[in-house]
C-alpha cells in the first residue's frame, strides 16, 4: 500500500503500459511511432520505479526516474536527428522500406 493505493494497481498499470509500448514497437512501421512506443515502455518502467520506490519508502526510485527522463530526452534528440538525416536519403522513415543492409 502506498498511501491508499495498492502496489498491484501500479504494477498492473506499468505492465499494461510496457506491453502496449512493446506492441507498438513491434507492430508500427514508421520509425517515429516505434520510437514513441519505446518511450511508452520507458514510462512504464518509470511508473513501476515510482511505485516500488514509494512502497519501499526510498527516494531512489524517483532518482532513477529522474535520470531516465533525462536520458529519454537525450535519446529523443539524437534519435530524431537520426531520422532526419536518414530521411534525406530515403525520403521515408517506414522501416519496412529501409533495408539497404541485409543478409
Amino acid at each position, binding site marked *: 500500500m502506498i498511501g491508499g493505493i495498492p502496489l498491484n494497481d501500479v504494477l498492473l498499470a506499468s505492465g499494461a503500459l510496457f506491453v502496449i509500448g512493446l506492441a507498438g514497437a*513491434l507492430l508500427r512501421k514508421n520509425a517515429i511511432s516505434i520510437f514513441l512506443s519505446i518511450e511508452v515502455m520507458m514510462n512504464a518502467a518509470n511508473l513501476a520505479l515510482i511505485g516500488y520506490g514509494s512502497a519501499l519508502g526510498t527516494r531512489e526510485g524517483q532518482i532513477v526516474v529522474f535520470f531516465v527522463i533525462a536520458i529519454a530526452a537525450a535519446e529523443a534528440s539524437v534519435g530524431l536527428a537520426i531520422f532526419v538525416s536518414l530521411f534525406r536519403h530515403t525520403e521515408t522513415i517506414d522501416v519496412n522500406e*529501409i533495408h539497404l543492409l541485409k543478409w
Partner: protein
Amino acid sequence: MTSLSPPLWLIPALPLAGFLLCLLFGKRLGKTFVSAVGPGSVALATVAAFLRLIPFFGGSHAPVVEKLADWITAGAFSVDISLRLDPLSALMISFVTFVGFLIHLYSVGYMSHDETGAGYARYFAYLNLFMFSMLVLVLGNNFLILFVGWEGVGLCSYLLIGYYYDREYAASAGRKAFVVNRIGDFGFLIGMFFIFRLFGSLDFSTVFGAAAEDPGRFAPYLTVTCLCLFVGAAGKSAQVPLYVWLPDAMAGPTPVSALIHAATMVTAGVYMVTRCNVLFRLAPDAMLVVAIVGTVTAIFAATIALAQNDIKKVLAYSTVSQLGYMFLACGVGAYVAGMFHVMTHAFFKACLFLGSGSVIHAMGGEQDMRKMGGLRSKMPVTFWTFLIATLALSGIPPLAGFFSKDAILTGAFEGHRNVIFGIGLLTAGMTAFYMFRLVSLTFTGGFRGTHEQEHHLHESPRTMTLPLIVLAILSVVGGWIGLPPAISESGDRFGRFLAPIFPALPSVHAETGVLAHGTEWLLMAVSTAVAAGGLYLAWTWYGKQEGRVPARVAAAFPGTYALVRDKFRIDELYDLLFVRPFHALAWFLWKVVDVLVIDGILNAVAFLVELAGDLLRFLQTGNVRNYALTFFLGVVALVLAVIGVF
C-alpha cells in the same frame, strides 16, 4: 686360407664391380670397355670361384661360413650377412660362374649389332648384376640372404626381359615375370615367417639343425611351411600354375634366355627346395605335392611344346618341362638326381638356347621354324652343337641328359611312385619328339624363308661358336660324374659329393630300397627306348615327310590342336579369373568407395553446413522490426526456460 683361395665375398663382389663400372662409365667409355669389363668381371669371378673350389673339392666337404657383418637386428629378429660354402653351393657356383662366363662371351658377339653404346652397356651391366645376385643367392648362409639374391635375380630378369623396353610386349613380359615371381615370393616370405616363428632364426644351420634334432616338435607345422616355400620355388622355377611368365620371358635377348631362363635362375627354386631338404623330408605331404606339381608341369609343358612353331617358345616350354622333372625328383626324394639334372640341364639347355640364338642371329631375328629349314649346311657348328645338346636333352646315352634323367626316373621308381614314373617316362618320349621336331624343322629339308634371309645366312662369329662348342662338350661329358651304380659302383661321385647336405633324419624311415642292377638296366633300356622312339617319330614325320602326318593329325582334331598350339589358353584363363576382376575391384574401390562414398559423405556434410548458412542468412531480413521481434522472442524464451510458467 692361402692367398690362392680368395674370400667368398670376392666371388659375387667382382660382378657387382663390373655392374657398377658398366652402369656408371659404360656409356662414356664405349663398347670395347664394356666388352672387357662385362665378361671380364665374370671371368675373374669364375677364376676366383674355382680357386676357392678346387681345394674344397679335394679336401673335406665340411661347410665353410664366412660372416661379413650383422645386417638386421631388431627385437627378437636378427640376421647377419654371411656366405656359406658347402657342397651344394659349391656345385651351384661352379656351373653358374662358368656357364655365366660363356654366355657373357657369347653375348659380346650376339649384342654387337646394338648400334648405341648405351644399350650395350646397359645389357652387360644388368647381366653382371644378375651374376652378382645369383651368386649371392647360392652362397647365402641364411634364408634372408638367399632371398636377397632371389629378389635380385628377379629384378635382373625383369630388366633383361624388358631390355627392348620400347617394344610393348617385351616390357609387359618383364612386368609379368616380376609380378608372377612376386606372387611366389609372397609364399616364400610367409614360409620364412613360419620358419622364424618355429625356430627363432633364419640361419640355415640353426634351422636345419634344430629340425633334424627334434623333428617331433616341428613336424606338425612343417607341411604348411614347406608348401609356402614351395610356392616361392614354383614362382621362380616356373611350375604350374605360376609358369606362365617363362614363355613370355623369351622376349628378352636370347643369351639372357639361355643364362637366366634356362641355365641358372629358374633352377633357383630347385636349389632352394634341395637346400631345405631337411624340412621337406620331414613333411612328406608337402613332398608329395612337390612331386605332383613337378610331374604335372613336366607333362603339361611338354605337351605344349609339341605344337609350338617359335623356336624359342619350344625351348622355353621344354625348360618348364625339365624344371618340372627336377621338382619331380625332389618330390620323390631324389634330391641328388634333381641337382644332377639341374647341372646337366644347365649345360645342354644353355647350349640349345645359344644355338637357337645363333640361328635367329643368322635369320635376322626370325624365330618361326616354319620359315627356316636346311640351315645345317649354312651353319655347321651351330647344327652339330645343337644336335648334341638335343640328344643330351632327349636322354640318349651316354650323353649328360641320359644319366640325370635316368637317375630321376630311378628315384621315382624307387620311391614306388609308379604313376609319376610312368608320366616321367612319357614326358621323356615327348621331349625327344619335340626336340627332334625342332631340329628337323630348323636344320633339315629346304629353306623356307625369304630370299634375302637366305642370302644373309652365315655361321656366327667365333665369340658365339666357341661357347657353343664348350657347352656341347659339357653336354656330352657332364653326366659322367654321376654314373648309376649299375654301371659302376663307385661311379656316383656326384651323389657322394652332395651327401653331406642330406643329414639322416631319425623319424623319416628310409624305405627307398636299393634296386637290383637288373632292374636298373631295365629302366635305362626303357627310357632309352622311349627317347629313341620319340626321336625316330619326329625324324620320320618332320625330317622325311615334311610334317604331313602331323598336319593330318591336326586336321583330324582341329579343336585339340588349336588348344595345344594356344598353350591351352592359360593366359586367357588367368586374364579372366584374376586380371579382370582385379581391375574391376580397383576401379570400384577408387570410383565408388573413395570418391563416391567417403568423399561424398564428407563433401555432403560440408555442403549442408554451407547450405544452412545460405538459408539462415536470410533471417537477416534487413527489417529492423524483425530484429526487435527476434530480440523479444529471445527474451520470452529465456524467461520461459528459466522461470517457467506459474
